[in-house]
């Protein structure tokens, strides 16, 4: 079995080899996109992630056994674009009359999970973060990427990863503190 590096190189001459990457990583990219954009958008964005990766494969930076951080970077970009498109649609709807059917990030997140006292606070706090800070935070917290992998995924320096993560954590902590959200959540978990 070849590692991702070799598979991508092979796909230059044999495009269908790229399907190997889909089979290896699509489940994880799908879960990441579902976490960030909801299940409705997941299929389209997963497909677009791999199609984009396929088109850019000749620019793939070789030397890494796993291409997953690279794919996370592409998915992150597409999720951001997805929200920008939704915001534009939202403005158009507002100008034209009825509100869009599509809910925003926090509403969607609310709808797809069981209600807890903390979730609305957490999702609102996440939605309030600068996009770059949020990307770093979620790639580390949810996808368990290392600092180096996040730097590679987003194409940013390692120092920027550290500073964005620090900023995001401080803002999240501040947002949660007045509500005692972390403590409440702890109590819920403890009592279950």
């Amino acid at each position, binding site marked *: 079995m*070849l590692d991702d590096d070799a598979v991508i190189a092979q796909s230059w001459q044999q*495009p269908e080899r790229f399907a190997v990457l*889909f*089979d290896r990583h699509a489940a*994880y990219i799908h*879960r990441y996109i579902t976490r960030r954009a909801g299940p409705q958008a997941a299929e389209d964005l997963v497909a677009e992630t791999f199609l984009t990766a396929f088109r850019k494969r000749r620019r793939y930076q070789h030397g890494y056994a796993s291409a997953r951080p690279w794919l996370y970077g592409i998915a992150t970009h597409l999720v951001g674009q997805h929200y920008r498109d939704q915001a534009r649609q939202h403005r158009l709807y507002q100008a034209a009359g009825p509100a869009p059917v599509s809910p925003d990030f926090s509403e969607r997140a609310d709808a797809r999970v069981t209600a807890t006292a903390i979730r609305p606070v957490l999702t609102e706090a996440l939605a309030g973060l600068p996009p770059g800070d949020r990307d770093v935070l979620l790639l580390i917290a949810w996808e368990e990427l290392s600092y180096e992998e996040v730097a590679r995924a987003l194409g940013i320096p390692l120092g920027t990863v550290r500073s964005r993560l620090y900023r995001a954590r401080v803002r999240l902590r501040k947002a949660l503190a007045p509500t005692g959200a972390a403590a409440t*959540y702890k109590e819920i978990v403890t009592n279950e």
Partner: protein
Amino acid sequence: MNELELLRDFGAQTPLPEPAELAGARDRVLAALTQEPGSTQGRGSARTWRFVRGGVTVAAAAAIAAAALVVTHVTASPPVLTARLTAEQILDRAAAAALEQPTVIPRPDQFVYHKTYDSGAIQQSWISVDGTRNGLIAENHGPREIVKGCAPGHRCTPVPDYYPSIPATRSGILAWLRQLRGIDIPDTPAGYGSAAADALDFVYLTSAQQHALYRFLAESRKFTAVPSIRDALGRPGVGVAWTIDDVRYTLIFDAKSYVYLGFSEGLPHSGAAIETVAIVDHVGDLPR
């Protein structure tokens, strides 16, 4: 609980998707891949790439007539209750089982026939033993693909499907695996596992060569035992596994005979299962 732990707990509530949830996206991606120049158009299975060069090995049945020597016809053994084995013990048993099989040495002018099951497609291939003759890959629902051989006197290098003299020593096997892959092999479970899977999937190994490879893998002590697993045909087996990015890759062996059944790649029903391996005289010949 700090804010990162809180986030992780929320994230953990979203499970990995079932394969069916990925099917739509997979179809779209594969459709785009097959539109690219260089693609083999219209293959019935998205995963036929696994056996583009040729197939797997494993000794088992007896040689039949001169026209077609069946090397392996893998049928499922009934489930057996065995004590939980370590990966080394599984590989040792596979090595011992290999030695009990008849040795079938192919002639350079013959072809290695494989019948495999991969993602719902049955694939048959006839690959030139010494790489000098044209071979063929045929799929049940797809076109036939000619595998170009490199005849003597032409400006090309034959790619054999059988290597008569693979060194039996540990360093010799490692060097051969490195040559086969064309890249260095990291001293890691994934490095050794990937190289072994390549050897099993892309070249023909005699029973003695299989024995040497399994012993090499056992002595490396790099793998994790999988006490129960089913291959792509649903046959019960045991396995030795390694992981890359949380995806588990497994070499699967029959639970009773320890004959190599195939390869599993993380997701359910992914991977390839071997049904038959044989040595035949001509492209299109079938083992009897």
